[in-house]
């Protein structure tokens, strides 16, 4: 599904000084797998998520990102979306005056167009939306509000999962989907993610906490520090991290 080879990424700050963030990431995610990426703040996890989705402003100095065998480094974000890639944002963006339902219907139909499918009409779309919104325990009324405008933190995160279930990506990247959620909301979000799990789909979860991984059990856990994956293992690695912190891996815990 996804193969990342020796990926080096840097950014320029306001003084135009170059700062290297990712220093040779190697990662292989097979179809049907769920991977968790953990690590201290500032280790490059969100950068990796954004680079995968095609955000501008990053210099990719080395390496390849292969999605189903195709190098997507030069590909526009909307094309990556069409190829089945979905990023759930750490901080979902508000779009005032744009109806949530309109937004989602237009997004879904633009993806369908890429796959030569006819657009869903309003009735079919509404039926589908009402079904999916129940699955994430979101208030139906949020459908008729503007995208994320005035949503609580938990509602925004659930809206991301709702979008994901509607758009049915083959590779979902979830950037700290669990941050700022209370325990009930976390369970709803986790249930939504589990619904997406299928042998032909893969999920990458960037997270700080073990508690999400109790609900969505990963196949592989990676620890990322200073732009490198320094350790990978099974789900038990997450327990170890929760218990011991990052110190035992030889990492200065005050890295920011």
């Amino acid at each position, binding site marked *: 599904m996804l193969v990342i080879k020796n990926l080096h990424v840097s950014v320029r700050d306001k003084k135009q000084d170059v700062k290297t963030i990712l220093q040779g990431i190697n990662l292989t995610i097979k179809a049907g797998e769920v991977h968790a990426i953990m690590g201290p703040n500032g280790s490059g996890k969100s950068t990796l998520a954004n680079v995968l989705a095609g955000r501008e402003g990053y210099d990719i100095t080395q390496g390849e990102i292969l999605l189903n065998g195709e190098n997507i480094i030069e590909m526009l974000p*909307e094309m990556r979306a069409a190829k089945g890639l979905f990023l759930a944002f750490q901080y979902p963006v508000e779009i005032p005056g744009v109806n949530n339902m309109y937004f989602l219907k237009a997004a879904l139909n633009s993806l369908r167009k890429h796959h030569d499918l006819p657009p869903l009409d309003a009735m079919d779309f509404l039926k589908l939306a009402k079904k999916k919104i129940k699955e994430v325990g979101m208030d139906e009324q949020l459908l008729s509000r503007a995208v994320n405008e005035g949503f609580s933190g938990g509602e925004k995160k659930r809206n991301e999962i709702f*979008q994901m279930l509607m758009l049915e990506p083959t590779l979902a990247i979830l950037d700290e989907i669990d941050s700022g959620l209370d325990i009930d909301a976390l369970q709803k979000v986790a249930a939504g993610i589990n619904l997406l799990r299928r042998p032909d789909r893969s999920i990458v979860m960037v997270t700080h906490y073990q508690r999400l991984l109790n609900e969505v059990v990963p196949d592989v856990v990676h620890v990322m520090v200073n732009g490198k994956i320094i350790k990978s293992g099974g789900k038990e690695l997450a327990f170890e991290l929760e218990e011991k912190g990052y110190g035992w891996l030889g990492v200065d815990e005050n890295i920011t």
Partner: protein
Amino acid sequence: MTNQYVKELVNKNYEHGFVTTIDSDTFEPGLSEAVVRAISKRKNEPDFMLQWRLKAYQHWLTLSPPEWAHLTYPAIDYQKMIYYSAPKVKKGPNSLDEVDPKLLETYKKLGIPLHEQGRLAGVAVDAVFDSVSVATTFKAKLGEAGVIFSSFSEAVQTHPELVEKYLGTVVSFRDNFFAALNAAVFSDGSFVYIPRAVRCPMELSTYFRINAANTGQFERTLIIADDQSYVSYLEGCTAPMRDENQLHAAVVELIAMDNAEIKYSTVQNWYPGDAEGRGGIFNFVTKRGQCRGKKSKISWTQIETGSAITWKYPSVILKGDESVGEFYSVALTNNHQQADTGTKMIHIGKNTRSTILSKGISAGFGQNTYRGLVRVLPQADNARNHTQCESLLLGPTCGAHTVPYIEVKNCTAQIEHEATTSKIGDDQLFYCLSRGFSKENAIAMIVNGFCKRIFNELPMEFAVEAQKLLEVSLEGSVG
């Protein structure tokens, strides 16, 4: 990435830039008392009109153009301009069959349903081509309701008493330089009278078109809503693409009596000039409504996407107790367009209320200024105003400015003013792209969302048009 997108989105061609070749009766360029007299004579006007024009002309000679607006443009040579140009007809047209087919074709190209077959659209149209009105539709049906809707010239002939009673009572020829010029040389426009307790059975609409070269367009609209009546009025404008600038200096006067309501909507799409800022219409317009009666209401909604220069402040004088004034505006400036626009709300009566909601969008090298006055006079107890100005910047080379004036002489007044300026964020854009939207669709969607509350104020058929117009005007501003 926003900047790049914006460049692409802003440059789409102007669709209405064609010229109609038509035989016309056109004056020599230049302005003098003789020209004013000739216009009045050509229109076969009664003496009170001629005298009024002459007074306006004499007053105009003492004035100089206003310089306080945040606008830069070359001085206009008023002697080089043509003040009267009319399509040639033997007599005034009595029905559409007598209108030059070329004119009808022009309006068809512009999508204006002049023929009564356009009945489905449910809009009565008065069309002004260069200096004169060429056709007014649905007259019979409106007549049954007692509504008078005709060209201004016709109203001068058929209802001189109404014209004499109301003309210039809201916008005096002494008001400003362009109002004086308009009063002296205006050649046509629309006239509406809604009798007592009549709800006008359809939307009324005027469509303005400048065709001839070097011609100024000076039209005048006068709308009177008698006690307990209601009317919704729409105005649309286009012009051919020409390298030189053309002047449009219109005056609109609205009068609402007791419990009457006037809703006035404009979609202004005059030729904005090319990407380098050559050509385009200079739009200097005085629009004002007077809530003369108690509990009357006047509401202005404007979508301003065209013109090289826009100088326009649709205002409401809240004279009647408990009267209401509203101003909803979207002004878009792209390339080298400049807009200095806003409103004036003058509170005179007691318990008067006004609302101002202004949205400015700037792209390219566009400069967009909101200029608004809220004035509460000493006798205006319990006046309320809420003003909200929001600006959206697309790219690093455009500008947005907000210049509010607030003058309160009564301590019971409550005035609120909010202003915000934002950029289309890279975050917003990336969010949309990551969901599969193209850049262009994403920007159009975000901008439309920004304008949503204004579009909601427009009559249905106009709201759709306005939304499309905005997308077209922004196309190419992203790249």
